């Protein structure tokens, strides 16, 4: 249900409820007042008749004919005030015209009473005059009294019926005006292009909308930053792929143009090298996207198992460069997202192999305590140059000219961050020591970072 409809319905319901309770209350109080006034009049009339009798202005004995109280016929509230005079012995002495044949009230004492005669309800006041030996009864039709109250209430209801639609219209206009800034905000959001991350116009906004606008602007800024990072990365990746492509194309040209087999063979060898390197670049680009991805559940596995898997994958690289990989025994089990640790270890070992001079040794070892594991990979290469040690984990920062994609340590850094671990680069003499410190058991990585 829209805010607008809800507001209008609530306001209308509240208005009607207030109005109705006002009417009920007025009806109640009017009825009470009308009854008070009419009852007083009844009593007064009865006493008046009684005193007239007492003055002997009307001879009870002669009053065999009913006296009349003339009333205007067209009066709306012809009260049909009716009077009967009874002897104490129970004989009807006289009555007003229009009075019923039956006795108005069975009550014997002075006071008010209700009675029903021929299906019509009466309110009767009886005065007992022992001196004259008569009972004077003055009655009032209850139906007339009710009509009086009804007409008063009717007088209230009709204006309400006429005013309510007008009130509804006013509420509608008021709410529409009040919600207009929301509509404008919606319109400006609707017109936005998918790549428009500029802040919303800073014009005056109602205080209630300002937090929404600020929150939206915050979201736009975050989305813009994310988009920029992704675009930078994509542009970077495209550039990084263009250089090996240029190399491939040039070498292919040479292979085609070469006049001797030696030149052609050398060009084909270069092409193979370049394809291997480009393949690694593409794999690392995908790996980087994957380690940044969601839904990486923790798995229980042996640390030694993952290290020997990595070494198996890199065997060809190692033997091609006449390198030796030494693995220390690691019996420990871990419970972390396997893919993250695998990517981290693989890239560290691959870097170590690429950095090592022919005949070099790469050592992989681990020390674990109850909470964490420290995995150390050392090589006998030249080490990461001092100048780039700080930026070594940035993307496309290469350690050695023409070797590597510049993504390896970036992948390791992201994987370590997601594992809640740390990456330390420590120079050794000679070579480089890379230490990965990871918790042995983590909650799924998704919960660790606010992604």
């Amino acid at each position: 249900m829209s805010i607008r409809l809800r507001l209008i319905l609530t306001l209308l319901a509240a208005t009607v409820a207030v109005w109705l309770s006002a009417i009920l209350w007025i009806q109640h109080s009017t009825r009470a007042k009308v009854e008070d006034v009419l009852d007083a009049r009844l009593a007064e009339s009865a006493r008046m008749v009684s005193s007239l009798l007492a003055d002997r202005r009307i001879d009870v004995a002669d009053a065999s004919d009913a006296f009349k109280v003339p009333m205007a016929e067209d009066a709306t509230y012809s009260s049909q005030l009716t009077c009967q005079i009874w002897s104490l012995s129970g004989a009807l002495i006289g009555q007003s015209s229009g009075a019923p044949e039956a006795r108005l009230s069975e009550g014997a004492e002075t006071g008010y009473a209700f009675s029903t005669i021929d299906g019509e309800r009466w309110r009767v006041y009886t005065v007992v005059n022992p001196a004259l030996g008569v009972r004077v009864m003055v009655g009032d039709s209850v139906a007339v009294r009710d009509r009086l109250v009804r007409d008063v209430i009717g007088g209230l209801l009709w204006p309400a019926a006429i005013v309510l639609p007008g009130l509804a219209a006013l509420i509608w206009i008021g709410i529409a005006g009040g919600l207009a800034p929301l509509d404008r905000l919606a319109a400006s959001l609707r017109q936005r292009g998918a790549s428009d991350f500029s802040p919303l116009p800073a014009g005056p906004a109602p205080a209630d909308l300002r937090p929404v606008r600020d929150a939206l602007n915050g979201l736009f800024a975050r989305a813009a930053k994310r988009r920029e990072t992704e675009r930078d990365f994509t542009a970077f990746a495209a550039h990084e792929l263009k250089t090996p492509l240029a190399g491939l194309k040039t070498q292919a040209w040479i292979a085609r143009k070469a006049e001797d087999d030696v030149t052609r063979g050398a060009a084909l060898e270069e092409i193979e090298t370049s394809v291997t390197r480009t393949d690694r670049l593409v794999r690392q680009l995908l790996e980087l996207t994957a380690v940044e991805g969601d839904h990486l559940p923790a798995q229980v596995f042996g640390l030694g198992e993952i290290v020997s898997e990595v070494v198996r994958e890199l065997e060809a690289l190692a033997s091609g460069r006449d390198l030796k990989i030494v693995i220390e025994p690691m019996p420990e089990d871990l419970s972390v997202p396997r893919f993250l640790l695998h990517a981290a270890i693989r890239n560290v070992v691959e870097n170590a192999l690429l950095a090592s001079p022919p005949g070099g040794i790469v050592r992989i070892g681990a020390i674990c305590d109850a909470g964490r594991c420290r995995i150390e990979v050392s090589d006998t290469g030249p080490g990461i140059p001092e100048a780039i040690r700080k930026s070594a984990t940035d993307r496309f920062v290469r350690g050695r000219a023409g070797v590597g994609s510049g993504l390896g340590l970036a992948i390791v850094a992201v994987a370590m961050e997601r594992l809640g671990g740390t990456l330390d680069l420590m120079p050794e003499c000679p070579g480089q020591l890379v230490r990965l410190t990871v918790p042995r058991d983590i909650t799924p990585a998704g919960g660790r970072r606010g992604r």
Partner: protein
Amino acid sequence: MRVLIVEDDAVLANGLVVGLRLGGFGADVVHRVEDARVALAGGGFEGVVLDIGLPDGSGMDLLVELRRAGNAVPILLLTARDQVADRVAGLDHGADDYMGKPFDMDELSARLRALLRRGEGRAAPGLAWNGLVIDPGRMTGRMDGRDLRFSAREFAILHHLMERPGTIRSKGELEERLYGWTGEVESNTVEVHVHKLRAKLGAGFIETVRGVGYRVAPEGS
């Protein structure tokens, strides 16, 4: 036509050296800005193929630095960033030409030849001497109404001799032109190719200066 290549990617650098040598250029390669600075200070290059993204700095900075120092050597920028804005920036910073990676080797050679030609103040593409006109783009020649075809190595030697007619080129200098296609040049390679050239052009076109090297014979001889 000696060209300095400044490129950090090993495969591409190798491809450029070999490719340009096949195209009749003499090519040297360095991988870093610092090395390029040293090589250019030594002089002797008629053109530079300059990559922008280098491990120890930007080729663009080197370009600006060279131009500010008054170095007018023709420079062709080679880069993966080949958007219009990048090209404009490169040319406005003093580059003579601009090619995006990946590029066509034939086109690169043609553009380099054009750059070097302009650097020497010539507009016509060919070189002419003593009745021979050679076309570096196609590695062909024309003499006395006959079309002549040369192998890449023959042409490299001929081209180098005709660039500055009369200048004596040592055997080592000529070997350097051939070096890199096969990795090594046998000791008599230059003699073999000069012999083949003489068979096509007539015995007197290239003179042997004993103990020094070779040159094209003076015009009219």
